[in-house]
């Protein structure tokens, strides 16, 4: 039943009873503002009251501080309306009532006069106005306090008047009640404060004070002021705590002694009742234990907080209370019991007042309690021997009994609840199975909740403790899951100490489970763990070693472990540093391994498996690929941090390797897009939770390591790895390019494998084919002279033995010149030189080579001569390829090749020779021009020219006999006159011969030089003679006046047989004639040809036939002018079909022809191109050109036409003598 402030009612009880119901209903209906003392904020409160009949005993005695039973207001009810009656009885009664009140010092009273219309009507005539009674009462009792008398009119009627009167009455009542509260509570608080101030005095008792302040709290609670009530309890709590602290500091208060009594009961908090009267009584009696007082205080706070709708504060306070519960109880485990029970009790209480959804949303507040309860139950279980494999001992059982005894009997209010904390604890402690069930239930609940609110670390910690439980129970398989999960989290966040600890647990677990491989791997990690003591590390190391030395049968699979835990590869160095050697040489690879084991470990075999990559094999290799450090040949490996300060994998994400990409369109190579790609996305984007880098020393579980079986390996046997840095040297062998892949250390049955060596490291052992190169000693090679050629033999993998010979097949064009003093030098560190012996036979030159080791260079020089091919001119730098065949001897043990090879050598002929035929009338001269095209200077001697066929021919030299010097790029001209006796053949086969030697060489070194050529159409057929005649009457030619050009063409010889057949002849008038065409042209614009410039001549084919032509020309300038050119062509009628090939010798004339074209300035482009196409040239009218059956012109060969007036000049005088000279004098 709820407490309400007490209001006494005196006077007419029947009247009060009739009004009680509406009064009790209406009083709390309207709130009232309560102004508070001490600056406390005013509050609106709904007042309620417990109306009781006035009794003298109700009035508090002097010194009674009880507030709950304190009557705050006294009401006197009367409906007296009769003066007589008033005077007779009511006044007396009232006086007595007031006196008794006054006697107890109570001033909170009110007199209610109820008026009814019935009464009024009844006494309408013979009584005083009703007010008089009220006035009388006011006069008699309420001196100066007229408000203490209230009139209530027609309270039971439903009229507006009655309502009004009710409301004013209620207002008055409330006001008075509040006044009373304020006054009485104020007085009470003052008293209480006074009492509190006395707390330093001896004899002060906290319990007494507690009761006083709690009284106040009760009143506030009664007034529904839970906040204020809570404040009272908090104050008490703080005061008590302060005392306890002071007590701890030595400031003991006597009253505290009572709390020091040994605790006999640890039944936990009881939160189901609003007030635990048992405890309260014991506090009142001063018999409560510390635990009782705390429990009671908390239960009250809890109740009030729940009233205040603040259940989450309860949990928080509960945790605080439970954590701070300071007193270790005498019976071990008792405190645990108390905490456990209390946790569950609080949780039950909260569950009782919240709906499940609310609970789920706020499990962050409750989870602490769950976890705490779990923890405590585990402690209890351990204490009572419920966690061990064997079950509790008798000692444990005794302890359990003691603990259970302290729980006492179950409280009556929970006796029917199936899941009360009390029952749970009792059950849990009763048997191993029940304990396990309860413990697991709690653990899982706590873990679930932690996970729900994303406190994964906390969840894992609970999981770890669960794992410990399983381990004690001897169920390692269930423990492992939790341990691994916890380990993963610690590893990923880089907490080394927890990692070590958890890993130790895992090791124990794996050992029990018999997971040899995993266990050994964990042992390896632990043996290298700097967080452990040396002793522990040695133990773990010993575990591995003893397993390794177990002599199991050989067929058993070796256990493969990750090397990262065992040793770290810190450095790798190649010797030589290029990491590239030829086969047969020694390539050393020095590995620096940092062994993490605490003791020296003897490794039976350390092997590095290598991967052979074909693509590089045998070539001249440079090691490539791995990003080189500054020191080539040495690779430093990135070190995972020492496990002491491991940075977690998540923090060491690899840096981005970015590359630019450009996308160009395939058609026009224009840029479509460009961008950046990350080359190592697979590393960067890797999920960190699942894909932990297996390389870190902190890896959760050893990654399964694949061993390259059957791969090639570098091996070292029997190495002892000391703790710390070790150097191991491997020696590499077979040719090829190799990539280091894995490193594997074998200790008995155990293999430590480093699955990947990164960065990629390659080395190369190359094997080279023997190679022979021939190159000229001096560039260019000159033909016709002995030249030195260098032979370079790279022996490669082939060792040249004694007796091996190089065989060169001789060719006629290029004989080898044997020389005795031929030396071969072997380029090697020991610069040896040995002689060569060269045997030359007709076909083959055999060079026996000195013995040379592989990968050396053998070099020797040979003299070769390239014979200059005589005969017609060739392009000067023709390549002469001469076969040389390096052939092995028949003996099969020394070949490097069974094939013969062509070695091309390019020789250059030093001279360029030209010949020309010169004529003077009938006399003929042959000119030979020898041009030195080489860079060297030569001596020329014994120049001679001979004719092969005609013996009758005499060639008379017109040259000096002496040697002639031809400097580089200079020419020598030689001339011979041709004399003949009978007849000059039309074709001459000439051979020019000379001997030459480089300048400064002795005379013996002269080498012949031959030049063959052929001359055709040598004979002079026509002579042309021109003469310029001045105009008639003039002595000299004058510029601007016409002159006559007389051209006289004379046939000199009888036609030869061949000529007759070849030339187009026309028989006209029975005479054989040849058609000739002459043309006068002036290329230098000296002459203007007037009228006909060309003409056709039919020459009779007979000696001395002459044709004269007269042509008008006009000199344009004065002075000595050369004659205009007169050209004579063969005129072939159109019937002739023979195409005329351009003759090299006619080139000069062609040039002049085209020059002439330009002078003519023909506007027609097409005809110009037609004309310039070749030697075909037609003059005159356009019909001639366009007509398809075109007659053609063919020039004569050089020497066939002799021009007498060639280069002749004529004096031309100026046109008049009157020269106008303008002289300007200024």
């Amino acid at each position, binding site marked *: 039943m709820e407490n309400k402030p007490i209001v006494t009612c005196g006077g007419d009880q029947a009247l009060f009873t009739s009004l009680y119901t509406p009064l009790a209903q209406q009083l709390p209906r309207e709130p009232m503002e309560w102004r508070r003392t001490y600056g406390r904020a005013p509050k609106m409160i709904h007042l309620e009251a417990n109306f009781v009949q006035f009794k003298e005993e109700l009035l508090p005695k002097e010194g009674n501080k009880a507030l709950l039973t304190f009557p705050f207001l006294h009401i006197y009810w009367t409906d007296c309306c009769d003066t007589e009656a008033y005077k007779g009885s009511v006044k007396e009664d009232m006086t007595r009532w007031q006196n008794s009140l006054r006697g107890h010092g109570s001033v909170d009273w009110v007199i209610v006069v109820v008026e009814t219309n019935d009464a009024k009507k009844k006494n309408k005539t013979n009584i005083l106005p009703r007010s008089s009674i009220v006035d009388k009462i006011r006069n008699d009792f309420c001196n100066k306090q007229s408000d203490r008398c209230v009139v209530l009119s027609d309270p039971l009627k439903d009229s507006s008047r009655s309502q009004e009167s009710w409301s004013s009455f209620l207002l008055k009542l409330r006001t008075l009640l509040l006044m009373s509260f304020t006054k009485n509570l104020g007085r009470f608080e003052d008293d209480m404060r006074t009492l509190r101030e006395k707390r330093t005095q001896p004899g002060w008792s906290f319990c007494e004070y507690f009761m006083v302040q709690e009284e106040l709290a009760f009143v506030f609670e009664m007034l529904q002021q839970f906040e204020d009530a809570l404040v009272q309890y908090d104050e008490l709590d703080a005061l008590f705590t302060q005392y306890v602290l002071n007590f701890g500091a030595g400031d003991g208060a006597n009253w505290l002694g009572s709390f020091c009594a040994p605790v006999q009961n640890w039944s936990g908090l009881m939160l189901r009742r609003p007030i635990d009267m048992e405890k309260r009584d014991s506090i009142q009696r001063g018999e409560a234990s510390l635990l009782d007082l705390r429990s009671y205080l908390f239960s009250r706070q809890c109740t009030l907080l729940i009233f205040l709708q603040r259940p989450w504060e309860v949990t928080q306070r509960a945790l605080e209370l439970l954590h701070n519960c300071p007193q270790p109880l005498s019976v071990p485990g008792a405190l645990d019991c108390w905490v456990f029970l209390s946790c569950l009790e609080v949780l039950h209480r909260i569950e009782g007042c919240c709906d499940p959804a609310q609970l789920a949303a706020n499990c962050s507040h409750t989870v602490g309690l769950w976890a705490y309860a779990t923890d405590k139950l585990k402690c209890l279980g351990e204490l009572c021997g419920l966690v061990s494999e064997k079950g509790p001992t008798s000692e444990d059982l005794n302890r359990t009994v003691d603990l259970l005894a302290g729980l006492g009997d179950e409280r009556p209010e929970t006796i029917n609840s199936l899941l009360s904390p009390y029952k749970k604890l009792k059950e849990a402690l009763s048997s191993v199975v029940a304990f396990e069930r309860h413990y697991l239930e709690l653990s899982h609940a706590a873990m679930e909740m932690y996970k729900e609110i994303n406190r994964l670390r906390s969840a894992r910690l609970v999981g770890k403790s669960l794992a410990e439980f399983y381990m004690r129970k001897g169920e390692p398989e269930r423990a492992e899951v939790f341990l691994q999960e916890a380990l993963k989290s610690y590893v990923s966040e*880089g907490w080394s100490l927890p990692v070590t600890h958890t890993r130790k647990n895992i090791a124990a677990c794996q050992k029990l489970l018999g997971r040899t491989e995993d266990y050994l791997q964990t042992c390896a990690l632990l043996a290298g763990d700097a967080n452990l003591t040396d002793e522990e590390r040695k133990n773990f190391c010993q575990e591995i070693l003893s397993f390794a030395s177990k002599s199991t049968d050989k067929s058993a699979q070796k256990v493969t472990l990750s090397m990262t835990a065992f040793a770290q590869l810190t450095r790798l160095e190649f010797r030589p540093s290029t990491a590239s050697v030829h086969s047969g040489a020694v390539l050393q690879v020095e590995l620096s391994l940092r062994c993490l084991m605490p003791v020296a470990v003897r490794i039976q075999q350390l092997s590095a498996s290598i991967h052979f990559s074909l693509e590089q094999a045998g070539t001249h290799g440079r090691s490539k690929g791995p990003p080189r450090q500054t020191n080539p040949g040495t690779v430093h490996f990135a070190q995972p941090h020492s496990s002491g300060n491991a940075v977690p994998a998540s923090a060491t994400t690899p840096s981005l390797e970015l590359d630019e990409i450009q996308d160009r369109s395939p058609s026009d190579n224009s840029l479509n897009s460009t961008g950046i790609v990350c080359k190592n996305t697979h590393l960067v984007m890797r999920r960190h939770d699942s894909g932990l880098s297996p390389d870190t020393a902190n890896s959760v579980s050893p990654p399964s390591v694949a061993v390259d079986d059957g791969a090639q390996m570098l091996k070292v046997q029997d190495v002892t790895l000391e703790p710390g840095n070790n150097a191991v040297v491997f020696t590499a062998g077979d040719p090829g390019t190799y990539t280091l892949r894995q490193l594997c250390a074998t200790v008995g049955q155990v293999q430590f494998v480093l699955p990947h060596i990164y960065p990629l490291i390659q080395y190369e052992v190359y094997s080279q084919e023997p190679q022979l190169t021939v190159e000229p000693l001096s560039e260019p090679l000159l033909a016709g002279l002995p030249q030195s050629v260098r032979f370079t033999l790279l022996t490669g993998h082939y060792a040249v033995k004694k007796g091996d010979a190089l065989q060169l097949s001789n060719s006629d064009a290029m004989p080898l010149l044997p020389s005795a003093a031929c030396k071969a030098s072997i380029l090697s560190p020991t610069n040896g030189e040995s002689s060569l012996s060269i045997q030359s036979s007709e076909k083959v030159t055999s060079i026996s080579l000195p013995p040379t080791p592989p990968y050396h260079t053998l070099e020797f020089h040979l003299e070769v001569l390239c014979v200059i091919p005589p005969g017609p001119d060739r392009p000067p730098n023709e390549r002469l390829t001469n076969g040389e065949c390096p052939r092995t001897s028949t003996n099969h043990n020394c070949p490097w090749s069974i094939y013969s090879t062509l070695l091309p050598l390019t020789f250059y002929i030093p001279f360029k020779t030209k010949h020309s035929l010169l004529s003077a009338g009938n006399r003929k001269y042959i000119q030979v021009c020898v041009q030195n095209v080489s860079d060297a200077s030569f001596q020329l001697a014994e120049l001679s020219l001979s004719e092969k066929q005609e013996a009758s021919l005499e060639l008379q030299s017109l040259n000096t006999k002496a040697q002639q010097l031809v400097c580089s790029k200079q020419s020598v001209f030689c001339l011979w006159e041709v004399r003949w006796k009978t007849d000059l053949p039309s074709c001459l086969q000439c051979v020019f011969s000379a001997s030459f030697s480089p300048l400064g060489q002795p005379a013996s070194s002269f080498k012949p030089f031959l030049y063959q050529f052929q001359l055709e159409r040598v004979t002079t057929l026509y002579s042309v003679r021109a003469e310029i005649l001045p105009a008639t009457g003039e002595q000299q030619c004058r510029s601007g006046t016409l002159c006559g050009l007389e051209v006289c063409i004379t046939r000199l010889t009888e036609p030869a047989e061949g000529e007759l057949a070849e030339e187009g002849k026309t028989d006209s008038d029975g005479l054989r004639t040849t058609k000739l065409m002459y043309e006068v042209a002036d290329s230098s614009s000296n002459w203007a040809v007037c009228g006909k410039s060309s003409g056709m001549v039919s020459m009779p084919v007979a000696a001395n036939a002459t044709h004269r032509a007269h042509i008008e020309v006009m000199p344009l300038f004065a002075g000595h002018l050369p004659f205009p050119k007169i050209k004579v062509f063969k005129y072939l009628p159109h019937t002739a079909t023979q195409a005329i090939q351009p003759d090299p010798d006619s080139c000069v004339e062609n040039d002049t022809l085209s020059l002439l074209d330009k002078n003519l300035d023909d506007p027609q482009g097409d005809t110009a191109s037609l004309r310039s196409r070749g030697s075909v040239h037609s003059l005159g009218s356009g019909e001639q050109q366009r007509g398809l059956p075109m007659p053609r012109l063919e020039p004569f060969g050089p020497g066939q036409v002799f021009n007498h007036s060639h280069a002749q000049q004529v004096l031309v005088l100026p046109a008049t003598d009157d020269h106008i000279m303008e002289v300007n004098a200024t």
Partner: protein
Amino acid sequence: MAVCIAVIAKENYPLYIRSVPTQNELKFHYTVHTSLDVVEEKISAAGKAMADQRELYLGLLYPTEDYKVYGYVTNSKVKFVIVVDSSNTSLRDNEIRSMFRKLHNSFTDVMCNPFYNPGDPVQSKVFEGMVSGMMVQVS
């Protein structure tokens, strides 16, 4: 005074952790590690409220039977955790705050050292000395 002081990197690995030598170091590691749960919870809660003028001091992270764990997070998400013995009631919030402030200042000095590589474990002697001053002197 404190029984354990830890500096934890943004990525939640310890940059520095030191506890009273007489007590179980491992336990403190576990405690501090677990406290990160609450730190993260508080950071995310505070982040939602006001990202700019966030209070660096996170207050009591969680109490245990033996210890009180306080947290503090710098603007660069480096966390400081101070563990105080539960029985030590003389330490008020203000003292804890000032301890954190001192810690923060000292840590800033460490970060200012050009030879210190951010993310590496803190090995500064000055920092060490300051921490020692804040720890309980166990006789």
